[in-house]
């Protein structure tokens, strides 16, 4: 199941940062993951666990 993100750019940002989108809480409508959410997660001091999918 795909996690709803605001854009392919944000998906790419997450992928490049090794971020598992399933671990990100979206702050957009219906929990949509926005650029700001991914940027915040990537900037977080303790990196989110990366799933080995």
């Amino acid at each position: 199941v795909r996690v709803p993100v605001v854009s392919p750019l944000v998906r790419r940002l997450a992928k490049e940062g090794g971020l598992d989108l399933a671990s990100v809480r979206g702050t957009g409508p219906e929990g949509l993951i926005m650029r700001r959410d991914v940027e915040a997660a990537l900037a977080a001091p303790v990196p989110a666990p990366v799933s080995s999918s």
Partner: protein
Amino acid sequence: MAGDNQFDLVILGGGSGGYACAFRAADLGMRVALVEKAEVGGTCLHRGCIPTKALLHAGEVADNTREAAQFGVAATFNGIDMAAVNAYKDGVVGQLYKGLQGIVKARKIEFIAGEGRLVSSNTVQVNGENITGANVVLATGSVPKSLPGLEIDGDRIISSDHALKLDYVPASAIILGGGVIGCEFASVWKSFGTDVTIIEGLPHLVPAEDENSSKLLERAFRRRGIKYELGNFFSGVEYTENGVRASIANGKTVEADLMLVAVGRGPVSAGLGYEEAGIAMDRGYVKVDQYCRTSVPGVYAVGDLIPTLQLAHVGFAEGILVAEHIAGLNPAPIDYDGVPRVTYSHPEVASMGLSEAQAKARYGDAGVKTFNYDLAGNGKSKILKTSGQVKVVQQVDGPVVGVHMVGDRMGELVGEAQLIFNWEALPQEVAQLVHAHPSQTEALGEAMMALAGKPLHVHD
């Protein structure tokens, strides 16, 4: 009609909002009834988007023909044959209408011809019969508005409905209202040879646009000889021997053969049983939440009937949203800032997202960066002999939050602008993609390159 009057979904009104909802709902397996008193396609197809754009294209052809010598083509412009223009326009509408009817059939939507009325929260009455649905969608659209005391006689004082059916080119015309519809008709008629004057009470044409776009359109219209009176309200109109004389609050008067009233459109909701069914209304509009749900469970409303942007594609989006919401697909609500807007005049005005002023109100004066790329630097625009600008509004160190374009054919660039805006792209993410040369999309690319700090065809 099927013997069974029980449907999953009953839709009242077959315009852009209603039929899009019907198509998507049928797709999702619902049994759908679509009640329409006139023709599927509604305002947009029969009295709006499509016929106006056909007239505008005929106008473009007329201008091309008149100005052919500038491009080395020897030609004589012999005038507008309004009967033939109307045949062309009606031909386009007719073909698309046939297409729509085909889809209604193919998707097995029950089309019910007749004027409907909501008689309970799940029942529409039409031709004396009750049609019930697990859900009901109100999509009765809008009609031209007038001003208090201003009577539209359909002859010398007309609405867009009449303007689209004129069988002659007026020698002169007053257009009351400088919004999208007013500016489109001004453009068409000027191309056809009419002496046009727009009266707009606000200080600018297309006043909903970024001020830069308004100013560029005003400059272009001035060059085309389209006159306008801005910043003073219309105060009245009287008949003259062969036409009309409009007065403006500053004391000026304008005479012409006819006056087009383009002061907006009002919802079609009176007498349709909405209020009686307990549906919350606001000045004739049906109130809805972000899923287009009215105050009555099971009843939705979409399109020009609700107080969102009056655009066909907004109707499509709302219709689709409702069908998906009913089907439990959990669609995301519509981001209305993310809807593209186009005025199809010559030149076109196209925009996405926030104006500079709106962006500054949201992010602060220091939180906003803008760049205006002049089409003078764009090869393809030079070839078309069009001028204008692509203005981009960026949140400082952040994504693009507005794109505002003026110039011929800019309406098609809004497709790219739409992705940039809705996908929260940073200027540098666009700037790294080199655009096709020579194209007008390059102007968008150049603006992004400039904002990303790497201007290419830009004079420093």
